[in-house]
């Protein structure tokens, strides 16, 4: 059943969310390049996040980017351990992606905004209410 669904999804998607998560676990930040407008889409979607075109091809992002904003989660959802940092990164290739930041939560400060960050690791966790594990990229400050 799951296999059939996956096959059906693959007919429409160049890169599925399962492919994306598998990539993260292998240390690769995967995305899509639009053949029409040349923009990068990440995480993957069925269409280009900029122009809506379906003419997409798989690509790997450098994993380098800039810290745009962050928050320190002090009160977590059930089954998660706080504190942890959620960050928004503007990748070198363009798309903004959300992830965790590996940094001392007590030393986080707006002074870190604009710092170079790089994709370091992956965070996976299955909480009580989800159908499967939650997979997200973890970044570290690289400068």
């Amino acid at each position: 059943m799951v296999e059939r669904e996956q096959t059906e999804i693959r007919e429409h998607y160049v890169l599925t969310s399962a492919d994306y998560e598998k990539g993260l676990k292998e240390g690769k930040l995967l995305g899509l390049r639009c053949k029409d407008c040349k923009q990068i889409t990440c995480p993957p979607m069925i269409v280009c996040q900029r122009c809506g075109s379906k003419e997409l091809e798989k690509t790997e992002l450098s994993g380098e980017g800039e810290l745009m904003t962050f928050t320190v989660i002090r009160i977590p959802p059930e089954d998660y351990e706080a504190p942890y940092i959620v960050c928004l990164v503007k990748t070198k290739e363009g798309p903004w992606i959300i992830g965790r930041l590996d940094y001392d939560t007590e030393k986080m400060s707006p002074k870190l905004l604009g710092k170079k960050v790089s994709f370091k690791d992956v965070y996976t966790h299955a909480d009580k209410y989800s159908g499967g594990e939650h997979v997200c990229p973890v970044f570290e400050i690289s400068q």
Partner: protein
Amino acid sequence: MAYVSIKNHKHGALNPLAQWYQKYGNLKVENILNSRMIADPLTLLDCCPFSDGAAAVVICAADIARRYTDEPVYILGTGQGSGGALARLEDFTKAASRISSARMAFKNAGLSPKDIDILELHDCFTSAEIIALECMGFFDWGEAADATEDGQTDLGGKIPTNMSGGLIGKGHPIGATGASQACMIVEQMKGAAPKGNQIDPVPEIGMTDTLGGDFGTLGHIILGRSRRSK
């Protein structure tokens, strides 16, 4: 941001239908800043509660409204917008879905922000109220925070906002919040809002701003005591 919480709790405490009725009506800036940190920089008093609640509206064709009530309120304009994931919105202080939805409603009604007498907006967090005021065009970018501190979004100000208490002071019964915003505007138009929340004279034109899924879905409704002239 703390001034949004002070204002919305002040009005929520006066609203007998609010979750925080007769509570938190007299907050000071320090109370908000010193309350428990949830997700920097939002403290507990920057966040709305999740509430149990219900709201209902009766809608019919404008032509037959007077068969059912002596005081109909008319829908003058509506707007709708949708967007993708929050992280894809490069600048989420300027959410495209809210900007286009509000513009659609104003265009539909043939009105502009200066025509609106009262506003109920989606203040799920104090920062959200400031962002909404700017996206809808009530203030220029970066000016809504100072305007709030200055009282321009309170009773007697430029645009009284969330006189029901909003999501923060009245409560946030998720699915019922949008309808409850319409109810609160209608109550104001009937002059039936609690003392301290009622604007005087009663508002002619009001507006609601409703959101779901981190700017994924936006809706605006402009309501008036008189039918629009065509």
